[in-house]
């Protein structure tokens, strides 16, 4: 592990970051949406494809052995990166959205012999929060619609946190599932996971943690956090698109019915009826994303080499610089708390009287790529009385210079629009 993170060394490994737009250099500040793939990740995938690619877990051929080793080796590496006690608790999915749907569907699918605590029913409640990404909200709305369960949510405070003052009346014996995000993809707020898990445990609710914005940005030990399920996406952590993970406690996964069904997840199939394999196979129907799992394992290697504590410290620095710089600009309102230990990673803001699309467009003309709109967190924006926001978000390869470019860029945005006042 290096003592400090050398963002410039990492940038050498990410070719896209060197590109420009007709002379204007690229400033990529949208890694919260998707990160860029370093050459080591691309190379690992290519190496696998050129030497070992085959259908995994099948029969008696050496290529199948090599590919199975690559796939299961990736599972072990990634599981250990997130602090999963057992690699068999990690299910590969295409993205975090599939992971969260997997849990929501499995808990609402029912079936013979599925225990009551793993079956949503009328009278049950599902608790989420008002800061969730649509991926951790809509699947629960749909699961409630299918089963007759009721959706409830924790509101937000004016200072951009979960309002836990009414938690006792929201999280009750009726709550079967409590699904919440580790870190808001808009506000940057980090939620008090252990406190929330303790409260959920006290009423016997299952906990589902959206770790999309935490696994890429800080050291994570899922066993330590105490949740029952966690979801994350490879493409947000320097890995490929098309691969992500659902981690779940083995004793729960082992009792849950499947979500997507088909080949490789079965035990016995007759025309009349099928029985299902043990986890994780039970939840990995069809030909898996083998080369992408290999790529994600290489991303995890790289992140481990850098050290996640270093990543967190680095991104904290970037966040602070951005907040300090943007705060000075007249008319800018930050959507999120001031810097502090419980906020990092993303800086969302609005420029008074200007729409986020227009702001983003003028930043784009300077090569600065940020995200505009509601960032798949529409209820959160509605809560704070805005239709959207402009968001800068960071990865280990971002530099303080890039943050300064953003701040300078926003000064220019203000000037640009002033012409038309």
């Amino acid at each position, binding site marked *: 592990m290096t003592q400090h993170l050398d963002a410039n060394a990492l940038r050498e490994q990410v070719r896209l970051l060197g590109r420009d737009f007709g002379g204007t250099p690229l400033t990529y500040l949208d890694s919260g949406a998707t990160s860029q793939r370093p050459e080591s990740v691309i190379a690992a995938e290519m190496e696998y494809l050129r030497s070992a690619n085959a259908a995994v877990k099948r029969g008696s051929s050496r290529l199948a052995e090599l590919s199975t080793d690559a796939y299961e080796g990736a599972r072990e590496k990634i599981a250990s990166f997130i602090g999963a006690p057992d690699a068999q608790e990690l299910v590969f999915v295409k993205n975090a959205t599939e992971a969260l749907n997997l849990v929501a569907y499995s808990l609402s699918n029912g079936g013979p012999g599925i225990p009551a605590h793993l079956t949503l029913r009328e009278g049950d409640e599902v608790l989420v929060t008002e800061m969730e990404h649509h991926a951790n909200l809509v699947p629960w709305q749909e699961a409630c619609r299918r089963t007759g369960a009721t959706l409830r949510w924790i509101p937000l405070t004016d200072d951009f946190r979960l309002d836990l003052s009414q938690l006792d009346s929201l999280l009750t014996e009726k709550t079967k599932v409590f699904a919440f995000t580790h870190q808001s993809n808009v506000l940057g707020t980090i939620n008090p996971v252990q406190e929330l898990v303790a409260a959920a445990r006290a009423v016997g609710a299952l906990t589902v943690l959206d770790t999309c914005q935490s696994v890429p940005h800080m050291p994570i030990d899922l066993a330590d956090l105490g949740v029952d399920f966690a979801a994350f996406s490879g493409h947000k952590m320097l890995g490929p698109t098309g691969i992500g993970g659902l981690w779940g406690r083995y004793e729960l996964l082992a009792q849950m019915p499947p979500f997507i069904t088909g080949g490789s997840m079965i035990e016995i199939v007759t025309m009349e009826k099928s029985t299902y394999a043990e986890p994780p196979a039970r939840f990995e129907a069809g030909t898996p994303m083998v080369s992408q799992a290999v790529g994600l394992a290489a991303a995890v290697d790289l992140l481990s080499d850098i050290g996640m504590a270093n990543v967190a410290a680095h991104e904290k620095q970037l966040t602070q610089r951005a907040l300090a710089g943007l705060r000075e600009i007249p008319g800018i309102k930050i959507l999120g708390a001031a810097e502090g230990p419980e906020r990092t990673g993303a800086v969302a803001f609005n420029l008074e009287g200007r*729409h*986020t*699309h*227009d702001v983003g467009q003028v930043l784009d*003309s300077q090569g600065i790529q940020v995200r505009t*709109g*509601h960032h798949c967190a*529409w209820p959160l924006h509605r809560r704070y009385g805005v239709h959207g926001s402009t968001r800068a978000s960071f990865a280990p390869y971002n530099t303080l210079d890039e943050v300064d470019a953003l701040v300078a860029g926003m000064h220019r945005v203000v000037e*640009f629009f002033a012409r*038309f006042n």
Partner: protein
Amino acid sequence: MASSLDSMYTEIIFEHDKRPQHAGLREDFDSEVHHVNPSCGDELTMRLLIEGEGDDALVKDISYEAVGCAMSRASASIMADLFIGKTVAHAKKVMENFEGAMKSRGTDAGDEELIEDGVALLGASKFPGRVKCVLLPWKAYQALIVEAQAKHETDAPEAGEQA
């Protein structure tokens, strides 16, 4: 700053953004739609009032409430101004020319005789991500006219026989 940016954001755009023509929702209308741009959350409520049947019908009023970027608000304002008082047939011709130019990524300059102030919106055609913003009110009008004409046909069931 890139000149394509300057060709998109012009005085006329901000004029319409700040003082949108025909804005507000008026009570006299044949049809109403609520359209959104799901990727950014922009919302548009628009109402249409026509007089007469078929292609010769007149656009009597377009009223709307638009939450969105400067481009989409200016677009609603300019379109309403272009269509009100014109025939449905004329609006259709303008629409086709404008949509074609808008989707051309800057290769089709549009027919200025037809689309008039709409030319000011074409700066966005070089930014495929923004074409949706500009077209939002135009798509709303397309839905509105279908509904309004259907309503007029039901209101005047003899129309077909009279013709």
